[in-house]
């Protein structure tokens, strides 16, 4: 069972306290109605599936409840880093 560092609690906690919430740094367009069908499709459905470094969102569901970002290696399943929502991509 992986330990995940919650950047809000500043503690490493077992993964069963957390829930994955998909790829990170995909901002909802400020004006969805102004989006072309293609742009909106890309926002809704198109996701990266990298081998290696992956930026994803996690939520400390059974802890502080905060969403945060993480860099996880999809091959080794190791977390490189975690950081607060809103902070720049690492």
């Amino acid at each position, binding site marked *: 069972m992986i330990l995940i560092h919650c950047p809000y609690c500043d503690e490493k906690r077992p993964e069963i306290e957390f829930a994955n919430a998909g790829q990170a740094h995909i*901002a909802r367009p400020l004006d969805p109605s102004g989006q072309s069908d293609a742009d909106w499709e890309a926002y809704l459905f198109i996701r990266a599936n990298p081998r290696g470094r992956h930026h994803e969102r996690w939520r400390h569901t059974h802890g502080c409840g905060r969403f945060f970002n993480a860099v996880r290696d999809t091959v080794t399943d190791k977390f490189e880093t975690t950081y607060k929502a809103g902070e720049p991509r690492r």
Partner: protein
Amino acid sequence: MSGFRLETGGRIDRSQSVQFHFDGKTYQGFAGDSLASALLANGVMLFGRSFKYHRPRGLVAAGSEEPNALISVNRGPGRFTPNLRATGVEIHDGLKAFSQNRWPSLAMDFGAINDRLGMFFPAGFYNKTFMWPRSFWDRVYEPAIRKMAGLGDAPTAEDPDVYASTYAHCDLLIIGAGPAGIDAALGAMDTNKRIVLIDEQNELGGGALADPTLWPWLERSVKALTDAANVTILTRTTAFGYYHDNFIGAVQRLTDHRPEITDTPREKLWRIRAGEVVLAQGAIERPLVFDGNDKPGVMLSSAAKVYANRYGVAVGKAPALMASHDSGWHDVFALAKVGVGISAIIDVRESVDSALVHEADRLGIPVYLNHAVVGVNGRHGVSSIDICDYSHQRVHRVEADALLMAGGWTPSVHLWSHSKGSLKWRDDLGAYVPDVPNENVHCVGGCSGDWDFGTGAVIDMLPTPKDQSRIKAFVDFQNDVTAKDIKLAVREGFRSIEHIKRYTTNGMATDQGKTSNLNGLQIASSALNKPVPDIGLTSFRPPYTPQTFGALAGHAKGALFQPTRTTNIDSWAQAHGAVFELVAQWRRARYFPKSGEDMHAAVNRECVAVRSSVGIFDASTLGKIEVVGPDAAEFLNRMYTNPWKALEPGRCRYGLLLKEDGFITDDGVSARLAPDRFHLTTTTGGAARVLNMMEDYLQTEWPDLDVWLTSTTEQYAVIALQGPNARKVLEPLVEGIDLSAEAFPHMAIREGTICGVETRLFRVSFTGELGFEINVPTAYGRAVWEQLMAQGAQYDITPYGTEAMHVLRAEKGFIIVGQDTDGTVTPFDAGLDWAVGKKKPDFVGKRSMARPDIVAPGRKQLVGLLTDDPNLVLEEGAQIVADPNQPIPMTMIGHVTSSYWSETLGRSIAMALVAGGHDMMGGTLYIPMPGKTHSAKVSGVVFYDSEGARLHV
């Protein structure tokens, strides 16, 4: 002919005789014996029948790597454990053990005919042979194969034992308490580290238990570790898996060896998080591959030494040694020292360390270098062996009643591999050893390839002048895989060891190839003429040895498998005979049958009561979220399809929630209590999901909004009071709220008290009748419910359950998200476009409602169905077609989502999702069912009081 008890020696307690049973026969052993050593001491060599060929099999090993001697233990009803290794079962008075995979008896087994037909059972046999005809597989092949090729019987009765589990944390976890593990513990003992030392055997010592010269050291060391306050020692504990971040799973066997204890847990699952791990798992001796190497009486030479020195049992009166490694020589010297006559030492090498030869000479043991065993005589045991002199290519016979194999050593890297540590190949050892760690872990002793067993030759199989096609030289004893099978796999084109493994099943038995993987690799390497590292190594996966489901499940079984959520009113429903159903972990009353009523009759009565007088329903499971803050209305406006900003305090609104893809995900009625405070409700199953979704948008998309979300689902009990007499029941109990139709209209909320308890009183209806939903603090739920029951008695107030609730709402065409929608239904599809705020510039899912696929014609839309036969109730999920006479397979254009008998309407009603359904009003559709095709007219979804007159009274 075989094993016997030595006069002296061993760690057994000869003053404590133990009586046990094997296949119904009674034997004597001593305290400290394993089942294997005790049976061996009684001359038993035959322990089981092999998996595929039903060949007689005996002990190969003395530890948990044993591939052959799998037995079952019966501790009474529900306490039957198959597939235990006899080497790891401690005997006790009354132990009942049984051999497996034999019929009618171990010595006389009908399945042994498979052995004679062996030429018909090559690698891939099952895949190739039982392909045709297909219909034979279920009825003929599989039952026959299952009967013949099996391990122990699965237990049939429920397991009455209790299994414990615990979490543990330590700075240093040492796995394996042989000399290397004990040294590691002693070395760290004087630090302030919390240390856990675990070993699968019943006492610490590992390999030292078979070396009496180490016993004084062992005793001192065990005492020092036992006395150290910072060291926890777990014996009879198997570390079965090594997971991420130094998380180790281990099972401790607590009572199997102490049958007098029945009231404490049988086993305990340890989940250990360690700062640092030291693996001291040791090494496993490798068998040699030659014709007849699976005969009972052919075993590992290190095992013979364990039986002699640890258990005081000789494996034979005149065993011979077949070696490719020095360690076997040392083993038989140790046997000679305790009085076992060694008949011969045969070594495949042309020369060995001269000191070994001198010692053999001194002990009078004949030595045959550059020789190898090419045949073993005797069927249920060894009577003699045939050895080949390679220099003259001559075969001659040597008398022996057991044959010991010394093929070198395989570091036990199982847990290291679980932890994803990398391995490197060492040609000199013919083995993989740990290389780069992936966790904070290191290996010591035998499992690191560090040992003082001497040297040896690495050899795939012993050369033989015999016809290769006529010999059976086993690689995997448990799965009956021979060297020939592996060569056949290579001939048939398999190149990777992962494929060879799956085709031959080498290493895929319950022992995961502990004794067979490396020999299999060497044989494949020779056949492919490629070095071993180029062929790879198969992965080890947990568990290291098989563990019980009981230990893994722990208390999570039966009623404790998952929590059941109950409302404050649940106990009342229980006391009044409710039939329950589980809804998203909630236990909900489904209906309240009176004596003699079936579900149908009860539901009809409950529905009629609501429509004609008043019904009462426990709606406490509704999800509830309190939304508070200056931006609360703005937030809801962005989340829901409906407009919220203009909603006045004291009013309610039906909210429809979409996902960003435009599909309905939840709905519920919500109330504005104050400009900055809303009381949201969600579906019972959607509460957590909706809160998570709202938190997501609030935290990550709109962090500028000043809003707070709090789950209040469990803070309120909710009682729905529905029916024309609802107001009359409520009036005498409520204070501070004017209940008149003018002062308290439909879709309003008021705060006051009921029965003296604070309430948030909603005037809402999921039935189409005059209705109220009474929210009170959870603890008062049942008390208020009982007051309402008493007050409503004069109106024959009727408690109703979820089934009647479903019928009543369907009569009104109210959808249930997840039943009438399936994650691909838009508001328009569901006929809920009235709930969409057309003027709102944005809300979650709005942009998607203009996606090309969603505006395209032909989408499935929610419609009503009225069967032409009014008494026919369609099956929910039934498929719908436009033309019942079209050829099969028919084009299915939709399915029935809800279907009920409506006692109020005196006929059946149904809802369905049908492609283009909104344009089919009045048309006829068909529902083909086994034996009959039903027809139905398409209608709107509101079947009762379509103008809503009953609501506004």
